[in-house]
């Protein structure tokens, strides 16, 4: 009924609860903890009923568990931690590929897609990088998309080429230029999470957020005809929440020459 939030011992191996702070002081202490976390205010939580069940939070929770267990060997994690294994299987998370990024990153951030509904056959992705400090160094970034097996009629048209294009502003303010960012070849029956390397685009969006016009996905079949990504089994914003596309970026904090000691 009266949560304390801070627990300290009294030097006699007895833990006492610091609950006798006046309300104003307690507010100050909360503010100090927020500042320690590098935040100016308490973030507004999502309004959904269970936001951690969504694809991005669930994936990030898997990463968090991996980091917490980093001192253990990979074998121990695989044998003794079913929750971790489940996350690893679900998101193709293996330490082999992501080990360097996860271990050396100071901040890992997932971004929700604000791309909206598909634009004709093209699919648009937009991730808001305006809140990311330009001083953060982008190590790498991955776009993650979930794909179901395509209908059998699509099998004869494969393999399919997924081309991710970076949207740039042209000379005119209305002009937009599409520049190839990444390519991926998938078969019709392929299912699971697809990972696309979008590090170059993410670097641009971080350092120059005003140049962020998002990504376009153009999907073509083996004969060069355009295909709707939904027909290929790609999950869009209408699909299940735990299969929504999202972007994960690995950041390294800038080196401070004279860090402020607190």
């Amino acid at each position: 009924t009266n949560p304390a939030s801070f627990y300290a011992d009294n030097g006699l191996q007895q833990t006492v609860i610091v609950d006798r702070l006046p309300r104003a002081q307690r507010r100050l202490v909360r503010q100090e903890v927020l500042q320690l976390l590098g935040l100016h205010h308490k973030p507004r939580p999502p309004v959904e009923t269970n936001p951690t069940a969504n694809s991005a939070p669930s994936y990030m929770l898997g990463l968090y568990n991996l980091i917490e267990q980093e001192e253990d060997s990979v074998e121990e994690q695989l044998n003794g931690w079913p929750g971790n294994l489940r996350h690893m299987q679900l998101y193709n998370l293996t330490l082999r590929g992501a080990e360097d990024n996860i271990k050396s990153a100071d901040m890992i951030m997932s971004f929700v897609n604000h791309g909206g509904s598909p634009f004709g056959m093209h699919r648009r992705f937009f991730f808001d990088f305006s809140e990311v400090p330009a001083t953060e160094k982008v190590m790498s970034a991955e776009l993650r998309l979930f794909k179901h097996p395509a209908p059998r009629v699509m099998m004869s048209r494969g393999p399919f080429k997924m081309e991710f294009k970076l949207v740039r502003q042209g000379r005119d303010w209305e002009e937009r230029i599409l520049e190839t960012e990444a390519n991926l070849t998938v078969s019709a029956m392929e299912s699971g999470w697809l990972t696309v390397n979008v590090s170059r685009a993410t670097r641009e969006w971080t350092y120059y957020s005003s140049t962020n016009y998002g990504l376009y996905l153009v999907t073509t079949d083996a004969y060069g005809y355009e295909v709707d990504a939904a027909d290929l089994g790609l999950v869009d914003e209408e699909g299940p929440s735990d299969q929504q596309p999202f972007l994960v970026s690995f950041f390294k904090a800038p080196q401070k020459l004279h860090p402020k000691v607190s």
Partner: protein
Amino acid sequence: PVSADARRKKRSAGEKSIRKDDVSFARDSGYVYGLPSKYNRQSCGRRVLYVSFRDLGWQCRLRLQDWIIAPDGYSAYYCHGECAFPLNAHMNATNHAIVQTLVHLLNQLAVPKPCCAPTKLSAISVLYFDDNSNVILKKYKNMVVRACGCH
């Protein structure tokens, strides 16, 4: 060096011998032994300080959603206690701290005692939502005291 006669005199003066139990009690309870109980002081050591995000109302619960996904809280610890003579009884005293203690005994007004401060710190990772429902996993360095010592 103390001569054998002097030692005998001291013993006969009824100096209280220190039992093993007393020493272990003093060590466990964090008090410096050898001082009158009135002046008992805590020796430098790591003390418990736990910050509960859950009790702050910042942690996600099934019904009440909030912004920190994990962890529930963290053991920050803090260093507290005195670096008094003899420093051998204290944790991780540096050679310089021992010298400083001796110089402090000679000139208490000019030279302060060594400080009880963290010697090893470690990081914690916090997973939280931002204002745009993005999820951030951030490593915060130097948040947990691993060891304390006299500097």
